[in-house]
């Protein structure tokens, strides 16, 4: 497992180049690399300088390095305030293809939820349409023994509706009340990117967390739907379901193992995880290759319409915006709900400083009343965070994604082919993403309407808060990491 696979935003947290096993992390690093960060330089003057520049390592760096890697889980990493992905030895046992395949063999009811970004990546790779890919994936998974194949663009519509309601609530809180707490209501920041959440919790801390939307990501939303509700319709106990998602992003593995996404039906009952395992698009391609499957010639099975944005005519539907469309959908909803403006046609996103920073505004009577931004990649993220910290953020909503170009460019996507530039691939993916996918209002999604009617009552209800919202926790620096940074 190479740390390169996680988003750059997570890798920036990859700080402990002199980490020793004694210091917070129990993982020993790859030994004998040159220069070996665990071994201080031998010449005495260099040793002095080494400690002068890295005083906290004194007395630690000279400890012998264990050669056997200690296994730690992603959960251990999440709880730690130090590095999270620097260690090559981080074990992803619960997140691998092997675990997925063995769960099928153990007789669990395996359900796979596929992200639209993964679909697009495979579609470009195989020269197919997203719908063809989805149908062929259904064939592939069902052949392996998977019970159902779902679509996270369906659960994303629920995420989007909850986000729209949360925004209106925050907006009113900010504009109607003047207490200290209401100042923390806006800007609202999207919460779907686990790389961003991890960075916010570990590095930025408590000042930024109140701004982050409490709505779960589409991955966790579909997990909550399956294990709380759909399981009953399928007459399967939630503990007997093994739920796998296919995601464009390695960081989604970190999201899936958060304690916040584990629940118990009864006080003494078994702990149930919303998402048991995450496979990246690339890992799914590995599966296809390892089984010598000719993917393009696979049959096209009917889709599991229980949780998939597939209309009667067979075509797919979803929202515009390849990173989830949060800014766009909430903007349209807020314009209509708060100002009675129905926006027809595409939104006019203006590029501000680079293609990864765009803003959209609504003017009423010559006055700007709404200002939202898309903010992708670490450098742009830094600038909005600086503005928020200084109290100078002019946006009411920020769609933040850790990766440049957003989720289609996630670290788990299929890499460019030989001779293909990363920029060309992104352009192909952007076009492919909405190929034969009809744009549809999440509020009109019949599946989501059904979920509210049968289960969640209404957007923002107590039930919706219980199942569809989450919390964020600043990671308190451990004593060892404080020593490191004295």
């Amino acid at each position: 497992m190479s740390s390169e696979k996680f988003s750059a935003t997570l890798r920036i947290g990859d700080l402990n180049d002199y980490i020793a096993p004694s210091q917070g992390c129990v993982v020993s690093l790859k030994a004998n690399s040159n220069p070996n960060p665990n071994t201080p330089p031998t010449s005495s003057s260099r040793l002095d300088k080494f400690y002068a520049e890295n005083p906290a390592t004194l007395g630690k760096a000279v400890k012998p390095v264990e050669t056997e890697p200690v296994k730690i889980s992603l959960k251990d990493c999440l709880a730690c305030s130090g590095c999270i992905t620097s260690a090559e030895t981080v074990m992803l046992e619960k997140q691998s293809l092997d675990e997925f395949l063995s769960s099928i063999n153990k007789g669990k009811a395996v359900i796979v939820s596929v992200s639209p970004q993964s679909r697009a990546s495979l579609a470009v790779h195989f020269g197919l349409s997203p719908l063809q890919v989805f149908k062929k994936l259904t064939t592939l998974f069902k052949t392996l023994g998977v019970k159902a194949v779902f679509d996270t663009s369906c659960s994303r519509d629920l995420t989007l509706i909850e986000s729209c309601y949360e925004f209106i609530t925050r907006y009113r809180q900010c504009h109607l009340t003047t207490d200290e707490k209401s100042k923390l209501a806006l800007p609202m920041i999207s919460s779907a990117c686990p790389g961003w959440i991890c960075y916010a919790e570990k590095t930025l801390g408590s000042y930024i967390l109140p701004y982050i939307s409490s709505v779960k990501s589409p991955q966790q939303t579909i997990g909550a739907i399956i294990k709380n509700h759909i399981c009953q319709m399928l007459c399967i106990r939630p503990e007997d379901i093994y739920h796998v998602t296919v995601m464009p992003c390695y960081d989604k593995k970190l999201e899936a193992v958060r304690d916040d996404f584990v629940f118990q039906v009864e006080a003494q009952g078994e702990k149930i995880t919303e998402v048991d395992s995450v496979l990246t698009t690339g890992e799914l391609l590995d599966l296809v290759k390892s089984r010598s499957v000719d993917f393009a010639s696979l049959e096209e099975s009917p889709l599991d319409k229980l949780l998939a944005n597939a209309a009667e005519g067979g075509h797919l539907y979803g929202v515009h915006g390849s990173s989830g469309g949060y800014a766009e959908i909430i903007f349209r909803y807020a314009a209509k709900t708060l100002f009675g403006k129905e926006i027809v046609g595409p939104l006019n996103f203006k590029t501000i400083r680079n293609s990864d920073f765009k803003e959209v505004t609504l003017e009423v009577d010559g006055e700007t009343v709404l200002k939202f931004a898309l903010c992708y990649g670490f450098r742009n993220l830094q600038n909005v965070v600086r503005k928020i910290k200084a109290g100078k953020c002019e946006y009411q909503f920020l769609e933040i994604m850790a990766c440049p170009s957003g989720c289609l460019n996630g670290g788990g996507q299929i890499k460019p082919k030989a001779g293909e530039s990363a920029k060309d691939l992104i352009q192909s993916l952007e076009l492919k993403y909405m190929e034969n996918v009809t744009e549809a209002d999440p509020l009109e999604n019949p599946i989501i309407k059904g979920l509210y009617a049968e289960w969640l009552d209404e957007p923002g209800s107590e039930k919706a808060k219980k199942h569809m919202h989450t919390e964020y926790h600043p990671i308190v620096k451990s004593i060892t990491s404080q020593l490191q940074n004295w």
Partner: protein
Amino acid sequence: MSLVDESFELKELQVLEGHADRVWSVAWKPATGFDGVPAVLASCSGDKTVRVWEQSPSSGSFQCKAVLEETHTRTVRSCAWSPSGKLLATASFDATTAVWEHVGDDYECVSTLEGHENEVKSISWNASGSLLATCGRDKSVWIWEVLPGNEFECVSVLQGHTQDVKMVQWHPNMDILFSCSYDNTIKVWAEDGDDDWHCVQTLAEANNGHTSTVWALSFNATGDKMATCSDDLTLKIWGSDLLTIQSGNGSAPWKHICTLSGYHDRTIFSVHWSREGIIASGAADDAIRLFAEDGDGLVDEPKYHLLLKKDKAHDMDVNSVQWSSAGNRLLASASDDGTIKIWELISLAGDQKPPL
């Protein structure tokens, strides 16, 4: 007659005392030290402060005019004046970079740049003062754009080095950034015209590069040569075709010209190239050495000769050597012994070696 034919003496003019811990770095303020403008020097230290020293026009001696404190909470590792001299940027182990403005008699911290995960090691302004680069222990190199009103915006976060980045330095007249690291390499970074910065070249051991930590780098006056210094006890000279770079027709690669080995027996922490072409080095053996190119033109390959070695320049490691750009042949050095020294390079006229 070239510099190597002359005899020189490095005369100690003054010892600047005041820092309570090792002094890491010194920086001469641009456009000072000539035309009646008194020379100004900034220094930074393990004592968490920055001191600004000014030369008295009457006595010629340097006095501490300001102590910049209570902003950084840990060691201040490096400092750099903006090209106009209006701003002073300081990089600290407290993970921040501070930008100071000279207001009246005082220096005011006008901006703090956060983002580095931990120790910031070095800082550099580009030639026009529109960009600021920082680097640090988190292995990253950051580029910031300077906006009106002392606002700074992050333009790029560059991850390419595999270890602690020791120093960043902009090319003297083009927007090309250089960084050197504990990973033994020097990396060259350039913009692709689309606001995206990329590593365009890595000078590693395989390119006749260094075999241990590269601590510092410096350019000659025209910017077609670069000197680097390392824990591998060598100085290396690199060259590039300046006309190709300036024409903008792709990147002109930097090539190894020569290696100055056998002169140092301890780590070389600092290298600085004077405008007239003298390379100074500061090393862990407490000595300062001066080198110059052999200008006889008899051989194609440039040769560099040791002009002089100042033994016991300091009582401890020499962390930084910096020539004044004022053409007054003043050199400042900073040391683990807690002092800064001002040196004057004096040509010993009448004691010249006979031309070969």
